[in-house]
C-alpha cells in the first residue's frame, strides 16, 4: 500500500562525502531517485557504489551532507525506512544454518505487507526446497533465496547491490524479471548497481556513473542513448594524434581514420567535425558499455600512435 501524498523523490542524497581513513569513498554526492523508476548505478570496482548503497540503507552514517529515504533519515529511523525496502546484497549473508522454510518464517515476522501466497509462488518458481539448508545451496540458489525474502512483501524500494555478480544466466534472468515485475507495479522504485551494462540498458530508466566517488554522469537512459554517438572520421592527411574535438570522449584509431565516442547535440558535433577538416565516414549509436568505457578511460589512454 503506497501512502497517499508520498513524495515523488524516494531517495535524496545531498552533499554526501565519506572518507575511510585517507581514501575518499564518496565525494560530494548529490543524487535524487524519483519514484517509479529503475535507477542504475554504474562504476568500476571500488568506485563507491556499495558505499552509496550502504548510505541509503543506513548502514553507514553520513559524515557530511544528508540522506533521506522516504523523507526519513535511515539511521535515525531504521524501522520505518527498512520495512519499506527490500535489499539483496552482493555477497550472500543469509545465515547458513537456516533452512529456506525457517528463513521465510523468520523474515515474515518483520514485514506487515508480507504475502504468503506470493512467497510460496516465488519459492516454487525459483525451485527452492523448503527443507534445504541455505549453507548447502548453490550460489545461484542462495541468490534466489535472498531475492525471495526481498520481494515477498512487495517493497516500495528494491535495492540491489551488484545482484548478478558471479551468477549464471538463469538466475540473472530471474533477478531482471523480478525488477521488471516490481517496476510494473505503480509507485515502486528499484535502485541497483551492476557491472553488466547490457542488463542495465534493458531495464534502467536512469543511469548514474560513479568514478572515484564522484558522479560523472547522471541522466535518463533515453537521453544517454540519444546524445552519444560513435563517429568514424576520415582525415585527408594521416595524423599521429587525434584532433581536439569538443564533445569527443575517447578516441581510437590511427593514420587517416579515427573513431570517437561523442557526446552532445549532433549538429554541433557535425559542425565541429567539418571545422576540423574531416569527413564522417560512419555513424552509429552507442550502447551503455561503450559510453561507460569512453568516460572511464583515462585521458592518456588514447589510441596508439603510428
Amino acid at each position, binding site marked *: 500500500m503506497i501512502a497517499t501524498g508520498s513524495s515523488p523523490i524516494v531517495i535524496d542524497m545531498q552533499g554526501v562525502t565519506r572518507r575511510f581513513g585517507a581514501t575518499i569513498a564518496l565525494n560530494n554526492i548529490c543524487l535524487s531517485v524519483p519514484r517509479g*523508476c529503475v535507477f542504475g548505478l554504474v562504476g568500476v570496482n571500488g568506485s563507491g557504489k556499495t558505499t552509496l548503497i550502504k548510505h541509503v540503507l543506513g548502514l553507514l552514517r553520513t559524515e557530511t551532507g544528508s540522506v533521506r529515504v522516504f523523507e526519513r533519515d535511515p539511521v535515525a529511523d531504521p524501522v520505518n525506512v527498512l520495512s519499506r525496502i527490500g535489499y539483496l546484497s552482493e555477497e550472500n549473508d543469509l545465515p547458513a544454518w537456516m533452512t529456506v522454510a525457517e528463513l521465510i518464517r523468520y523474515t515474515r515476522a518483520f514485514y506487515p505487507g508480507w504475502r504468503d501466497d506470493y512467497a510460496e509462488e516465488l519459492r516454487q518458481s525459483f525451485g527452492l526446497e523448503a527443507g534445504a539448508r541455505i549453507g548447502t545451496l548453490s550460489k545461484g540458489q542462495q541468490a534466489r533465496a535472498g531475492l525471495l525474502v526481498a520481494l515477498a512483501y512487495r517493497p516500495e524500494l528494491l535495492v540491489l547491490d551488484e545482484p548478478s555478480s558471479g551468477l549464471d544466466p538463469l538466475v540473472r534472468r530471474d533477478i531482471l524479471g523480478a525488477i521488471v515485475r516490481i517496476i510494473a507495479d505503480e509507485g515502486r522504485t528499484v535502485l541497483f548497481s551492476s557491472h553488466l551494462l*547490457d542488463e542495465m540498458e534493458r*531495464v534502467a530508466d536512469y543511469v548514474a556513473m560513479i568514478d572515484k566517488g564522484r558522479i560523472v554522469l547522471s541522466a535518463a537512459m533515453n537521453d544517454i542513448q540519444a546524445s552519444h554517438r560513435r563517429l568514424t572520421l576520415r582525415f585527408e592527411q594521416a595524423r599521429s594524434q587525434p584532433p581536439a574535438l569538443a564533445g569527443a570522449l575517447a578516441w581510437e584509431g590511427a593514420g587517416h581514420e579515427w573513431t570517437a565516442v561523442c557526446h552532445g547535440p549532433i549538429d554541433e558535433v557535425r559542425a565541429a567535425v567539418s571545422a576540423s577538416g574531416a569527413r564522417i565516414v560512419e555513424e552509429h549509436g552507442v550502447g551503455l558499455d561503450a559510453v561507460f568505457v569512453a568516460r572511464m578511460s583515462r585521458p592518456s589512454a588514447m589510441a596508439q600512435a603510428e
Partner: protein
Amino acid sequence: MQIHLTHQDRVPTYLQIVNQVKYLVASGRLKAGEELPPIRALAEQLVINPNTVARAYRELETAGVVAKRSTTGTYVSDAGSPLARRERLKLLTERIDALLVEARQLNVGTDEIIDLLRQRDKSL
C-alpha cells in the same frame, strides 16, 4: 507476438520493437484489428523496462501502425488510416535517405538499388 531483441547494432530497444512490429504488420503476421500484448506482459516477456515498451507503443501510435483504445488495450490499426499516412511517408523518406547514403558509400548505383527493391518486394 514474437519479438527478438538484439544488441548487435546498437539500435535502441524501443526502436527495435517498433521496427519489428512494423515488419510483422507489413508481412501480414499481425492482422489489422489484432491486439498487441499489454505493456506489462511484453516487458516481462522480453525482460526490459515497461517504460521502453510504453515508448515503443507510443511511437507506433504516432506512426499510425497501432491505435490505443483507452480501456481495452492496443490494437493494430487498419492499413489505410489517412491521418497517419503523412507520418508513414515521412518515416519512409528518412529510411530511403539513409539507404541512399549507405549505397553511395558502398558505391552501389541507384538503378541497382531499384532492382534490389523490386526483388525484395517480390520475395516478401
